[in-house]
């Protein structure tokens, strides 16, 4: 397997990045199986709630309200968090966030740091940066350990190692933990991970976490997880640094009631996730004694300005959209070249990159709408995808090299043709004549030249019939008119 590149600035375009996976039947099987299991669990759990649509409406309204008043809630969060003994930092971009974190770690004289639930830290590529600066980061989420030790990258938001199977996990653990006799029995694998982790939990005094929610009312933070490793990270160290996107805030403590319900059911198909941790500032003699929150913008306030795309920030990272997505099911997450894969990645990543990179992602969808149907906060992903496609086209169409690009040429020509029925009819005739030599005796085309070859790679095309509908209509009308 080729090492995936999850940096939108360097990753190849989606159609190309998807190829290695499409040619890897084992990987596709792993992904299809895993997403099947999660979607069917989710389906069952959602079906047992009569008020699911009402919950979804409430969650959607709540998130929309937050985005409309984001400044207010963030200020409130800062004030309450500070009052409870936390320190709030604001980071405009990835570089600033990395510097803030590095400075805190240097003040702590840290040479190692344990991490939990930090997709946002992957967004800002924190691990390689820390390593370069002499600080060793240790992931503690079981899936993240597998990836870190296997020098791999996450391929899913909730199940980052979804593409790896059990025997691959055994190989990674056996090699990196020096356990040649390890079997692929799940209990043994978990025990090995536990032994490995205990040492880190008990010896590394500094931790970095992500956040599922920031609570404005209390200045508190919440993380939900399934293993309990997060809880170890959140309680044992002396110093805690939480890195969170600014959109993660919710107004009140009681809003968790709605958010936790929709999140657990959508994400893992459970009524409630096993571990929900909540903490507010510092408490003498209990838990971390120094607590920092780094609030990351990194393109988010730009997204907030755009009326239709703003809904992207409602996302609560449940991953239901990628499990439902037929494109993701075929390609897995690495093809997206971003830590945010699937439909949400397809709209979030190019926007975080200010639409300068990852421009193939808005096209990585057949617009089937399955993502919108499952999204618990009702993000109309297809609508945003189409909008972003228009942005990409607007950016590209003035580039000289696009002038003869078959797609741009074809679209411009088609528009001229469709503008007049006369021209359209002439084009229909030309198409019929032009494709005639390529059409077999049975009326089918087996191979098209140029751009069309991408269609006939796996599909035949029915030839153009001898009479268009409008020609039939005219001839029928003439026939009727005759006595």
């Amino acid at each position: 397997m080729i090492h995936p590149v999850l940096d939108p600035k360097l990753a190849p375009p989606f159609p190309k990045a998807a190829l290695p996976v499409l040619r890897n039947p084992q990987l596709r099987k792993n992904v299809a199986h895993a997403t099947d299991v999660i979607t069917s669990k989710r389906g069952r759990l959602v079906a047992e709630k009569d008020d699911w649509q009402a919950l979804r409406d409430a969650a959607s309204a709540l998130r929309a309200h937050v985005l409309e008043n984001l400044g207010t809630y963030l200020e409130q969060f800062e004030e309450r968090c500070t009052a409870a003994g936390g320190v709030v930092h604001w980071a405009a971009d990835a570089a600033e966030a990395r510097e803030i974190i590095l400075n805190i770690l240097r003040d702590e004289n840290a040479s190692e740091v344990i991490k939990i639930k930090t997709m946002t830290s992957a967004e800002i590529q924190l691990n390689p940066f820390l390593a370069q600066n002499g600080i060793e980061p240790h992931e503690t989420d079981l899936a993240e350990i597998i990836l870190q030790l296997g020098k791999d990258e996450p391929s899913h938001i909730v199940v980052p190692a979804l593409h790896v199977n059990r025997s691959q996990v055994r190989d990674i653990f056996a090699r990196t933990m020096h356990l040649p006799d390890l079997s692929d029995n799940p209990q043994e694998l978990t025990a090995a991970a536990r032994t490995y982790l205990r040492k880190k939990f008990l010896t590394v005094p500094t931790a970095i976490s992500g956040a599922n929610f920031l609570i404005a009312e209390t200045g508190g933070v919440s993380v939900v997880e399934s293993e309990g490793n997060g809880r170890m990270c959140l309680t044992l160290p002396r110093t805690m640094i939480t890195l969170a996107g600014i959109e993660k805030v919710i107004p009140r403590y009681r809003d968790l009631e709605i958010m936790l319900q929709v999140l657990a059911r959508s994400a893992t198909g459970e009524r409630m996730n096993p571990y929900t941790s909540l903490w507010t500032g510092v408490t003498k003699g209990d838990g971390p004694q120094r607590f920092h929150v780094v609030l990351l913008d990194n393109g988010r306030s730009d997204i907030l300005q755009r009326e239709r795309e703003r809904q992207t920030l409602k996302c609560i990272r449940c991953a239901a959209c990628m499990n439902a997505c037929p494109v993701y099911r075929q390609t897995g997450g690495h093809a997206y070249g971003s830590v945010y894969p699937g439909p949400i990645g397809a709209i979030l990543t190019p926007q975080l990159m200010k639409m300068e990179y990852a421009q193939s992602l808005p096209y990585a969808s057949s617009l089937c709408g399955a993502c919108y149907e499952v999204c618990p906060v009702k993000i109309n992903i297809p609508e945003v995808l189409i909008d972003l496609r228009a942005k990409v086209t607007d950016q590209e169409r003035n580039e000289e090299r696009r002038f003869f690009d078959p797609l741009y040429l074809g679209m411009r020509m088609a528009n001229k043709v469709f503008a007049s029925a006369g021209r359209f009819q002439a084009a229909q005739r030309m198409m019929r004549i032009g494709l005639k030599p390529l059409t077999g005796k049975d009326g089918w085309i087996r191979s098209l030249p140029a751009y069309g070859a991408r269609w006939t790679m796996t599909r035949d095309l029915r030839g153009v019939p001898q009479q268009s509908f409008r020609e039939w209509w005219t001839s029928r009308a003439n026939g009727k008119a005759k006595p």
Partner: protein
Amino acid sequence: MRASLFITCYNDTLFPETGRAVVTLLERLGVEVEFRPAQTCCGQMHANTGFRGEAFSLAKQFVRLYADAKAVVIPSSSCVAMIRDQYPALIDELGNQDLRRDFDALLPRVHEFSEFVVDVLQVENVGAYFPHRVTYHASCHGLRALELGDRPFRLLKNVEGLDLAPLDHLDRCCGFGGTFSVKNAEVSSAMMTAKLQDVLATRAEFCTALDNSCLMHLGGAMHREFAAMRTIHMAQILASTREHPAEVL
């Protein structure tokens, strides 16, 4: 009842038999069908590929052309979805209030073919005869954007002789997606292969749908694979009778 048929560029050129069947059926049900030859395309291809200005010019053309129509019937669920879901934003962004007013007045009179038969004509048994085993592919736009629900099934169940074969993973996309099928040809093919497995497993003679774009995709793959199954638009099944069986290609 008078209805105007918007055949769509795609059906007009590549699937005229679908249009003929719509006319035949609607006339049989007592509808006076008119066809406005100035029509071309709804702009879906442009809009979905990011060519918003071009899509808008076609949207405007559509609204102007049908402003006075009693009813517009469209045998393509994705084109109806384009009109319902995308026209409002396009017009708001690039058009003017007059156009928006005309569009809002027109929209309730724009119907997808099966909606028109079931909701407007209030007919579920159209008196069709089609003695074959058939499976129904719920295209994404029919299923999610238009929420056609069980209308297509109600129509098919009343067809004499028809043996309806249930399709697994009914809600899964066939992978066509317009320009997606060439821009992401390999991914599209992989999705198509998965869909085709489910479709062929029904052991039906025909796969039907309310959108010829999905059927062109699946039909093209069936032909490539030498499959015995064929595709047919639902209008052709409903138009089919003992005296005038469907033209099957």
